[in-house]
Each structure stands twice: as C-alpha cells, then as structure tokens.
C-alpha cells in the first residue's frame, strides 16, 4: 500500500499525542528515564569527545591554511575554530552523528519490540506502550543534548589547541587569544535552542519509524535506515529555519 507524506505526518502527530498522555505510574517512567539517560546519553560521551577533538584539530589546520596571509593575524585561527564549533559543528554536525548512533538504536529497539509482540504485550496489559517506551527516550535525549553540545565545544577547542601548535600553524597564546576575540554569548543560547529541537527530532522521528514497523528483522533494518535518513533531512531543514529565524 502506498502511503503518502501527509499520512506519515498525521500518524507521527497521532503517536505524539499518545506519547504525551498522562502516565499510568510516574515512578516507572522516572526509572525508565534514568535508564535512557544512561543508555542514550552517557554512552555517547566517548564518541562525542573523540569526534570533537579530531574535528577541532582538523578545523584549526584548515583555518590556518585558508588564512595563510601575513595581513591576517594568527588569532583568527582560534576565532574561526571557536565560531564554527559554537554555531554549527557542535550542534548540527553532532545531531547528524547522533541521529546515526542514537536514532538507529531507538528504531531497532522499538522495532524489534514491535515484531516480537512485546509492544502488543504491553498494550494488552493496559500500558500506553507509546508513552512508556518513547516518552522517557525523548526527555532523556532532549535533556542530554545541551550537555553533549557543551562537551563537544570544549573538546573541539581543546583539539584545536593541541593540534595547532603541534603542526606549527599557531601558538598556544595566539590560539587562546583568538578563542576569546569577539565572543557573542548569544551564539551559545542560539545553539542550545537548536540542540533542544534536534534532540526532539533525533528521538521522536526514529521512535516513529520503529513503533510502526511491520514484518521481521529485515523490515526493522530498513526502518532504521529510513529513520536515520529522514532525521538527517529534518535536522538540516530545522537548522536552516532556526538560523533564519534566530540569527539573521
């Protein structure tokens, strides 16, 4: 059966209305929330640190290469790295990476529960399965994303500070001066707003694809791929929208 774009939109919002319904027993949801913060958030810390250090280092070298002009002060390398991390990499790129890691995890977990009748089992017990399974994931990811963002900015800058002097394109004092130049605190506010929106997308869209999967293991795999692709497109769309609304 061919299902249109509007069908998915309608069903997505219908699912969200179930997700945000009143919980059967708040205590159970709180317990689930802590498990999800650990599973989806804390388990992502290492990958965020590693990626951020490398990207920070790479950006520093690239900025040094692009600004290799005696008229430009070397401090611009630190400034460029900082602003790229603050405005785009640590929020948007991180969200795209997390869509792959967290998103596919959510789709495959919920999808497997669907095809093995675990969701039916919850429904028959009288549990609102959409709310019990998805609500703690959304809250956990939305809660953890700003922390991952801040961590990513810190380790990205650290990566730049280690790499720049190591390859001889900038000194540590120049880099530190650079990352303090023309600093606008609003950039952080703007990026945290983006993080909250991206966190919601990274958790709710893959949950939708997992919750309505039909078939077996093959379909769960296909749903995971679809979830990641669609989440990435939505992240980029909302990035554009939010940048237009909040930054220009």
């Amino acid at each position, binding site marked *: 059966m061919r299902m249109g774009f509007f069908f998915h939109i309608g069903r997505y919002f219908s699912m969200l209305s179930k997700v945000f319904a009143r919980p*059967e027993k708040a205590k159970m949801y709180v317990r689930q929330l802590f498990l999800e913060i650990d599973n989806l958030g804390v388990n992502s810390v290492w990958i965020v640190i590693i990626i951020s250090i490398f990207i920070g280092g790479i950006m520093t070298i690239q900025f040094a290469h692009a600004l290799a002009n005696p008229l430009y002060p070397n401090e611009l390398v630190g400034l460029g790295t900082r602003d790229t991390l603050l405005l785009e990499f640590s929020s948007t790129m991180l969200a795209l990476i997390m869509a792959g890691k967290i998103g596919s995890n959510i789709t495959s977990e919920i999808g497997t529960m669907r095809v093995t*009748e675990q969701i039916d089992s919850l429904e028959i017990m009288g549990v609102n399965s959409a709310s019990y399974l998805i609500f703690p994931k959304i809250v956990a990811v939305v809660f953890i994303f700003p922390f991952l963002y801040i961590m990513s900015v810190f380790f990205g800058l650290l990566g730049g500070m280690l790499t720049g002097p190591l390859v001889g394109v900038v000194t540590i004092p120049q880099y530190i001066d650079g990352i303090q130049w023309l600093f606008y605190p609003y950039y952080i506010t703007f990026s945290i707003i983006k993080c909250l929106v991206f966190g919601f997308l990274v958790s709710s869209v893959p949950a939708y694809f997992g919750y309505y999967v039909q078939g077996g293991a093959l379909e769960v795999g296909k749903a995971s791929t679809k979830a990641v692709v669609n989440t990435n497109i939505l992240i980029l769309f909302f990035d554009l929208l939010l940048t237009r609304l909040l930054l220009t």
Partner: protein
Amino acid sequence: MIEVKNISKAFDGNQVLKDISITFERGKTNLIIGRSGSGKTVLLKSILGLFDIDEGEIWYNDRNLVQMSNKERKLLRSEIGMVFQGGALFDSVNVEGNVRFPLDMFTNMSGPEKIKRVQFCLDHVNIDRQAYKLYPSEISGGMQKRVAIARAIALNPKYLFCDEPNSGLDPETSTVIDQLIQALTKEFQMTTIINTHDMNSVIEIGESVLFISKGEKEWVGTNREILDSGNQKLDDFIFANKLYAQMKKGK
C-alpha cells in the same frame, strides 16, 4: 465466561470473520483451531479488543466489550493475561523483572510482597530460583513460555489468552506447557482461550474446541468428540496427517 455473539470482521472488503457465536466457559481450556489464514488470530484479537469488530457483541461476564469506554477497557485489560506465540518477554529485563513488571505497573504492593508474588508465580510454572536473574535470551524456548505464563498470571487474571503457546517447542515440552495451562485454569478458575493448530494440544486439553474455516464457525465440541465429528472440513484438517488418517481407519 466470555460470550461472543454474531461477530463479523472485514479488512478492506475481505470478510475474515463471518457471524461467529460461541461461549467460552470459566474453568475450562477453550481451544480455537483452524488452518493458517482461517481467521483464528483475528478472532482472538477481536475478543481481546485489539481489533474493532464490524458487527456483533463480545461479553465478558456481564460487560459488553463493544460498548466499553477506553477507561473500562483499560480496567478489563488488568483482568486479562496473555501468552504470545513467541513469549514476548521483555528482552532488557531478566526473568524476575518480567514477572514483576505488571506488579510494578498496576499494584501498590510493597517490595517484599512483590517478591513473594513473583516467587509464587514462577514456582507455579516450575522455574528454578537460579534462573531468576537470567535474561530471556539466556533461557530455552520452553522456559520462555513458562515465564510468559507466570507473567500472564501475575495479576491473578480472570481471563487467560494463549496464542499458539506450543509453536517451536518439542512434543514433550508442548505437553508440559499444555498441562500447565490446564492446571492453572482449574486452580485459578480462569476463562482460558487457546489459539492453536497443534493436534496434540487438542487431544490433550481440548475441553471445548471451536473449529473455524474461512472465517466461519464449522464445529464446536470436545476432544472426545472430535475424531467422530462427521464434519468433512474438520476431518480434512485433523486427518491431513497420514498417521492420524490410518489410525482413524483402524489400521
């Protein structure tokens, strides 16, 4: 007791259930049998309220499922236990946690009371205490079914539904599961409905057997009557196995 009155159900114009009426009695193992695609699962899910029926009534004692509000349906579901074909145990929780889940979700029992109830249910299905901390992936198929039964009876249900509880099990384990379901049905005086196409189950515990074919009720009787039903479609279903056919002819 569950009473089904003249229910019909169609999907996209395809009539899957046609005017089925049957009474499932309390304290008995009521079996629904039929070929694959005959409408057994749709009937079971309709009785459970997972599918909305097009016509007819479904009575749980004196409560009509069709006219129930969402709140009333939720209340009814707390009186229902269900054993799924694959067990449907929660992968991320161990054996003890699976049986404890409905108690955590729907009761205000204290911790020790819950532990006592979990032990009571698992003892009833002969699960050793050493297995309490194991995860579903670490136990056999037969054990998974027994844990699923323990979870289904945790809230002391009035109604027990089993969807092909023996699928994927060897004949000996199947018999153990059948006998277990029957014993629990008698002990807790539940109304039990089992969806199966396993003839061994029919012979073993078929106190009341409903045979459906192409969505229609074909025959109702007991395991003692089934071999001499005189119904051609039922005979074709039962004696599809050559050995049974030869036994019927007395060879």
